[in-house]
């Protein structure tokens, strides 16, 4: 659907994501503001964006495997752990530079993910979800017991450096994390429009019909897991070098569940939905953190610090409300909003 008075003259225009000069202007404006943000934004907001951007990368991967390819995975936190540990092992034990370790950790996590996704060749739906939970626990057990991953002591990866410049604060890491996030978003947005992306959607909608059409199910399912876990690995590597310590206790099943919740709230099968979902949950968490001391003061029986419990309740309620009232997530709301803006004088 086009805004009034915009006509496509060739295929390229028809397929373009960014169509009008207003689009270009707002995109560039947003990028400039984003990159200048650490100069005027508060430290708190900068570190909030860092953590949110890492979640965005992980959830983008989940979106590809779950939202597009229809293979639900509760293992994203564990694959993130694989990325974080790969990057830390490479930089601390082998002295590899961060810039090489970052893509490598993506590849290693992707490979582990492709092996971990093997059950998807035989099972789907909740069976697969349970299998990924099992994989989560096996992976976490492994990093806790292998010697190379520092077993229970964890590892202390260094901050990235570039020609003597050390990215050792949140403001400096902001540029790496946000740039990587933008590249990953660009790749994901385009990936789902290619042959591969269409194959994923076909598998999600009806795998038997897809196979009849000539889609190699084994290949594409494993590819979906590889790509998804590549994203998780990148997110894990960034996380490791931002926090500069990795530890098996950082990657719990609750995080994986949170990623799935973000996906549901944002909307399955939509790249902007990832951003909405992550921001919704992250802001909800912050709101709970700020309001729970107020609530605890007002209702003493809640105990001295009800934040974690209130956070869980808010998160669970939000996910169930979205499942009942808006199963297509915030992305769908956003589409409706865009459509009404485009059709402005003619419809509401």
């Amino acid at each position, binding site marked *: 659907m086009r805004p009034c008075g915009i006509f496509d003259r060739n295929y390229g225009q028809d397929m373009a994501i960014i169509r009008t000069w207003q689009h270009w202007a707002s995109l560039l404006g947003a990028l400039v503001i984003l990159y200048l943000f650490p100069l005027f934004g508060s430290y708190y907001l900068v570190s909030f964006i860092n953590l949110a951007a890492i979640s965005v990368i992980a959830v983008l991967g989940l979106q590809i495997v779950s939202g597009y390819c229809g293979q639900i995975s509760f293992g994203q936190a564990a694959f993130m752990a694989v990325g974080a540990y790969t990057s830390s092992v490479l930089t601390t034990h082998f002295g590899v530079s961060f810039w090489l370790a970052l893509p490598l950790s993506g590849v290693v996590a992707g490979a582990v993910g492709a092996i971990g996704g093997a059950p998807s060749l035989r099972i789907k739906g909740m069976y697969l979800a349970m299998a990924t939970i099992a994989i989560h626990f096996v992976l976490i057990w492994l990093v806790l017991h292998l010697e190379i991953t520092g077993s229970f002591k964890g590892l202390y990866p260094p901050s990235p450096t570039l020609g003597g410049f050390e990215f050792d604060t949140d403001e400096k890491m902001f540029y790496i994390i946000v740039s990587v996030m933008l590249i990953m978003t660009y790749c994901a947005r385009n990936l789902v429009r290619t042959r591969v992306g269409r194959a994923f959607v076909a598998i999600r909608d009806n795998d038997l019909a897809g196979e009849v059409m000539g889609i190699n199910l084994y290949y594409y399912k494993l590819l979906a897991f590889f790509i998804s876990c590549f994203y998780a690995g990148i997110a894990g590597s960034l996380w490791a070098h931002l*926090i500069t*310590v990795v*530890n098996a*206790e950082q990657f719990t099943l609750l995080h994986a569940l949170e990623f799935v919740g973000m996906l549901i709230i944002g909307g399955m099968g939509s790249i902007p939905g990832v951003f909405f979902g992550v921001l919704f949950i992250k802001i909800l968490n912050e*709101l709970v953190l*700020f309001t729970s001391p107020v609530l605890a003061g007002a209702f003493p029986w809640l105990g001295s610090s009800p934040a974690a419990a209130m956070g869980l309740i808010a998160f669970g309620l939000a996910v169930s409300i979205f499942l009942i009232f808006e199963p297509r997530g915030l992305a769908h709301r956003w589409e409706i909003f865009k459509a009404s803006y485009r059709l402005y004088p003619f419809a509401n």
Partner: protein
Amino acid sequence: MKARYLNICSVFAGLFLTLALFRVTAAKEVSYLSLADYTGPIAGLNVPADMGLSDFIKEINEKGGVDGIKINFIGIDTRYDVARAVSAYKRYRRTEKLLMVNSISTGIGKAVAGLIEKDKRAQIVPGDGEYQAHVQRTFLWGPAYQDALAATFDWIMEDWKAKGNAGAPVVGYLSWDNPYGREHLRGGQEYAQKIGIKLLPPEFFPPGTLKHDVYLTRLAKGGANYIHAGGVDPTPTNVIRDAYSLGLTKKIQFTTDYWGPTELGLGVHAEVLEGIVITSFFQRGEDAKANSFVTDMWKRNRGSMEKFNEVYGMGISWGITFVEGLKASVKAAGFEKLEGDDMYKAYQTLKGLDKKGIQGPCAYSDKSRRGSLEVKIYRITKGKALPISDWRTAPDAVSLHKF
């Protein structure tokens, strides 16, 4: 209709946010950040301890503060989750005059330590010997975990000889399969070797295990005369319950570290826990109930003694140390220029500080990160934790291990 509903919701959410952000700050205030677990595996210890600390701080503030300086206590629930703790620390990192961070959990302490070094601040953690071995900005609550385990081994040796046995006792160790569970043995193992105790291969189980029979029977089969059960309550209690139902408690003497059964658990499982020995760096059971400084504060703030927990006292002892550190740092640097670094320097001068008998005198110095050196041995008799020794200096097991 739906859209309007959503709008109303978002307006309310925004209102809430602004209300929460709008905080009146006192003129002269310093902050203390507690990264504690109020709802997870170690909450049984964190909740009462931070209760003690916050009551202590509240009473100080009501009396006008320390030289007119009010203390702002910030308690954050981490659920034993390192990621949550790190992001919480980052949120408060640039708080004006944030002087002390209490990272409750071995994993969290390690994760935050690096940031603490960068921010030139000080933190306190439970008891990882690592920070004594490499002296940095991290202080321990009491003696290191390995020191306390060594003190337990000393007691085992005495008990073994007192019972008229010859040779060396065989000791089993079982604990959580995580950083905390393994920390004790880094040094503890070496100490056992040094004094001639035969330590069986340690057993580790995941937190939340339903039954511990396998581990217990294996240790029993290995010929253990003593078994040290690690983990934060209720884990040790559950371990000992399993041992009791296996009939092991009669043959084998069980010991726990100071996160073992508290006053609250003793009442319900009195019969099961009979005879258990606890090595503690802070006052427990009847001792704690006899310390009027602690119990008066409990009664003033919490009412009846029915739900009293001795870990409350440990929280007060953090408070005493913090207030003394604050006095010293204000004297050295003045309030206006006060920073985390001054607190770090002040903590190193606190050697010999009396902690109202809750734990041994403070042992912080430029070389020492131990909160105190003494431990006391308790035995559970008829549902009461009674001391069976005086305060005694825990042996230095940290130096035996290569960190």
